[in-house]
């Protein structure tokens, strides 16, 4: 595996980047001329209004969508020129939706994350066993091992999918709206877990909907609108009332999150309610 370039230098080539990407589904061009690089060991969050191309960008970075022009580079090579299993050992993706196989147990589903490390005659090595139990411990699903995935709650199920992606043991992990369909406490649970994984040295890239959550967890924010990157950087430097109005058409006030000190967006109320009613 290629070693990561030295950290800290502003001109460093990051392990994962896209250059002059034109992204399109069939005839519909979603984004043109996108250039983006994911800082190594960052927790990068891509955010923007619906249909701004954020999931499309993530899918292109994860080689799910072939750019019409431009290229995605992983460790200096064009990603599609690398053997696909080799890519899968460096870069993982948690898709927005996956289909749970009928009647599969949690342990079996997590074990499927080991696929890129296995061969026909090496189906279950000691390393596989260790990676799976570690992934299950990290996501706190060890106790659910023998349960049928279909019977779990949405929050538990998302943890199991995350465990599968973790078992893949990739230094870079991409997540496409990992908190959609979850209630607020499970959203926080999943994001805290992502923060832990980032803390442990992984490069995380997530598409999120909630700007406040993005500000809280991201070390690097990519703000998109209409297929373009409007702003990029640390949330504290990037998120301003002007940006929010420009990107989301929302008038707001920005205060400090009392818990983390990160920007907290407070939408302007249409009618002011007197405080001491």
């Amino acid at each position, binding site marked *: 595996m290629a070693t990561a370039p030295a950290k800290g230098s502003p001109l460093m080539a990051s392990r994962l980047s896209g250059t002059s990407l034109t992204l399109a589904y069939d005839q519909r061009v979603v984004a043109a001329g996108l250039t983006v690089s994911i800082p190594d060991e960052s927790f990068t969050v891509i955010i923007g209004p619906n249909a701004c191309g954020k999931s499309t960008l993530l899918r292109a970075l994860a080689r799910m969508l072939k750019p019409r022009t431009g290229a995605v580079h992983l460790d200096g090579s064009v990603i599609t020129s690398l053997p*696909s299993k080799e890519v899968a*050992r460096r870069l993982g993706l948690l898709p927005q*939706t996956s289909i749970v196989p009928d*009647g599969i147990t949690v342990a079996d589903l997590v074990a499927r994350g080991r*696929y890129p490390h296995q061969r026909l005659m*090496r189906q279950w090595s000691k390393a596989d066993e260790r990676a799976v139990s570690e992934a299950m411990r990290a996501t706190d699903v060890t106790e659910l091992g023998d349960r049928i995935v279909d019977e779990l709650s949405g929050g538990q199920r998302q943890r199991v999918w995350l465990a599968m992606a973790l078992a893949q043991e990739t230094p870079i992990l991409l997540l496409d709206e990992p908190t959609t369909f979850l209630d607020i406490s499970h959203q926080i649970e999943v994001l805290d877990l992502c923060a832990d994984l980032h803390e442990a040295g992984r490069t995380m890239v997530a598409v999120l909907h909630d700007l406040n959550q993005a500000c809280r967890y991201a070390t690097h924010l990519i703000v998109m609108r209409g297929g373009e990157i409007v702003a990029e950087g640390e949330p504290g430097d990037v998120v301003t009332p002007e940006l929010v109005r420009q990107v989301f058409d929302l008038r707001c006030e920005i205060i400090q999150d009392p818990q983390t000190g990160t920007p907290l967006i407070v939408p302007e109320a249409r009618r002011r309610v007197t405080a001491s009613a």
Partner: protein
Amino acid sequence: MTIRVGSWSVRLAPRALLAGTALLVLACAVTVAALATGEYMVPVPDVVTAVFGQGTPVAEMIVAKLRAPRVVTGLLVGAAFGLSGAIFQSLTRNPLGSPDFIGFTAGASTGGIIAVVAGGSAMTIAGGALAGCVITAVLVYALAYRGGVQGYRLVLVGIGANALLLAVNSYLLTRANINDAATAGAWLTGSLSGRGWDHAGPVALALAVLLPVSAYVSRPMRMIEMGDDAARAMGIRVEAVRAVAIAAGVLLSGVATAAAGPVIFVALAAPQLARRLTRSPGVTMGASALTGAVLLTAADLAAQRLLAPTQLPVGVLTAAIGGTYLALLLRKDRH
């Protein structure tokens, strides 16, 4: 359960092994029963000696010459249908995505009927069926293709093709002379009657090549069942795997239909039964083939003996047995 030798390791599911063994025993039992019973009963020990060429001339004549070709053809055709059904149900992520629903078997029938009407021999009919199946598959695939083939689109296009081809088949039958129509009608029900080694041969060859191929792609196919993106993220070349699987499935259902006619329900029911027997959370190639073999030979045995001396076409029985069992299983699943 894991077996490790040096850096090699193989994973086995005890439940699947058990089910596989049980199916194998069942297949042997049905085979012996089919070889032993009939108008002339051959005692089981004589059947065994006759199979190994050590029996009495009479027993050998009846077992090896008369009954064995039919039984073997049944086992092979059943296995091919079961395997083909497993492949397509996995690809389409849909139990209804089996070749007898998405037009492939109907296409094979069209080819077969045209061969009958053209006055072809048994071999021509088989060839027509295989050609019909492959042409239909290519057309369905091409119509469903849009930068890759999505399972549901394959099913929808396939169901359309199926309806169209069934209409074509009926039309061909009404236009045929009465003798051809009767021949074609008998063939269309699906039957193993009068099948010999020349019918079994091509199916055996197809299975010898395509069973290992199917087993090889079954691991990536199980991943593709979770979604194309999920599989791609694991480093699977989804379109390549899918193309190989489709080719294998089409050829299997083509040669099986060529040998025995469009026997319905085996391709639909066998993979579903196999999954429940093995409790496997994904496509099971070996067990589906075995289940198909048992299902078809058992149905053929019943078709011959149930209303003896009246002989039913096996297609009638596969529908009855497979359908009943599947209905029972689905009923159980609801709880």
